[in-house]
């Protein structure tokens, strides 16, 4: 999800090494019994570390950035990076078999890079060319790759195994990596990108954390819900038990592109092979999944 990170391939490799150590030393145990999260104790430790880092550095820097730069400038920064990202978004749309979306993304890049003054102005959106959000993690999902276990990586945050590999490819393929030769410039560019992103999310994360009983669990559920939505381009099929209990499921138009992806029911575990015929069976099935 973060296409440019300072020498992040290296820190990712380090993170993986740390993870491997924890896994081998057996300090990872099942705590809550969520089948997607077998290394919960390791992940909780990493989560605490990231929270500490965010409290000490991430949030203060983002708040300072927000206080110093007016909104108008921050939008330009956002637009600039957003424009560069459209290239790989287009590539991923091609890889996912959506040529029309890809053409849209490349057209966005061309219009915004020229008429939009190097991407500072998102005039393509105003012209009706929609902004998409695609990455290699989503592409792998569309190809049918299994999600694998859930990990919280230092600095990089929640990613299942599929998204971890996807993120590594995103970073490797990020245009700034090959467009900027000078390491210092590249790192400052990446830092600006990350700070701008963090500043944009300040309100959202505060609300989320305030609302949660258990921040770790809440973030994990948000991650899974959000990724699933992105994989299905905003139209994920909704399992019947998401309706209020005791109510008949309704007729619904089929979701766009609802191919049998590996994680079709990834949100709350996997559905039983055949849909239960009555509410009680459905409810007891969903209970089994939660435990």
């Amino acid at each position, binding site marked *: 999800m973060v296409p440019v990170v300072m020498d992040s391939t290296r820190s990712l490799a380090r993170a993986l090494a740390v993870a491997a150590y924890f896994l081998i030393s057996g300090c990872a145990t099942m705590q809550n019994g969520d089948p997607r999260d077998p290394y919960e104790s390791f992940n909780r430790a990493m989560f605490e570390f990231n929270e500490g880092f965010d409290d000490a550095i991430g949030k203060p820097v983002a708040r300072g950035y927000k206080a110093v730069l007016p909104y108008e400038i921050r939008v330009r920064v956002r637009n600039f990076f957003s424009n560069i990202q459209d290239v790989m978004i287009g590539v991923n749309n091609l890889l996912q078999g959506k040529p029309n979306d890809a053409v849209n993304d490349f057209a966005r890049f061309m219009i915004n890079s020229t008429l939009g003054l190097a991407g500072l102005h*998102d005039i393509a959106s105003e012209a009706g060319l929609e902004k998409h959000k695609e990455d290699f993690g989503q592409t792998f999902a569309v190809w049918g790759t299994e999600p694998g276990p859930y990990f919280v990586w230092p600095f990089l945050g929640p990613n299942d195994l599929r998204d971890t590999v996807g993120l590594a490819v995103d970073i490797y393929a990020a245009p700034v990596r090959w467009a900027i030769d000078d390491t210092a410039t590249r790192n400052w560019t990446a830092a600006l990108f990350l700070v701008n992103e963090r500043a944009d999310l300040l309100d959202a994360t505060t609300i989320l954390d305030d609302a949660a009983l258990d921040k770790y669990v809440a973030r994990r559920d*948000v991650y899974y819900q959000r990724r699933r*939505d992105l994989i299905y381009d905003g139209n994920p099929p909704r399992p019947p038990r998401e*309706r209020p*209990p005791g109510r008949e499921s309704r007729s*619904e138009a089929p979701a766009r592109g609802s191919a049998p992806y590996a994680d079709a029911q990834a949100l709350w575990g996997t559905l039983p092979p055949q849909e239960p015929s009555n509410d009680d069976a459905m409810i007891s099935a969903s209970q089994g999944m939660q435990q």
Partner: protein
Amino acid sequence: MIRLLPMLVAGGMILLAGRALAAEVTPPDALVKMVTLEVLEIVSKDKEIQAGNVQKVIGLVEEKVLPHFSFESMTALAMGVNWRKAAPEQKRRLVHAFRTLLVRTYASAITSYRDEKFEFLPLRAKPADTDVTVKVRVIRPGRQAVAIDYDMEKTARGWKCYNMYVAGVSLVLNYRTEFAAEIRRNGIDGLVGALEAKNQKLEAAAK
């Protein structure tokens, strides 16, 4: 005179019925649009709300938005199977605590409204449907549009929202794992206690 009374009564009943009918036929998509635009209008004119006056925001939400939400259905959805196991008194306290938590935390999101544009998508449902999803999109420069989906059910008192997705994340379903874990550890009373304690903490922090 005596003949007039039944006519008055009948007339009154027709009027009442007419009003009930009118309230019932406000279609869910029209309702969402109306309420959203009304709230945005108020927020865009209110300097105190823009400055982050939480009490004022909560007042606005209580008056304009919450009448169109069914917190009982929301709580039931977040509880999943455990809802059936709760006693009436436990249900009452759960609904109250959950409502307070959602309002207190999410109402503040309204204050961050800036130059976003709202797009109201046409409703894809049959006229006889009693359970629909109303789709709204928030468009911001340089960002993917944020989809806001309202799951709504038809009740005797009009259409009520029982679940809300922001960018594919259900604010209600996201509590399911947390609720289930708390109930597994400390029972339904434990969850009631945890929610009420959480609300007290938030209230204390706001002062």
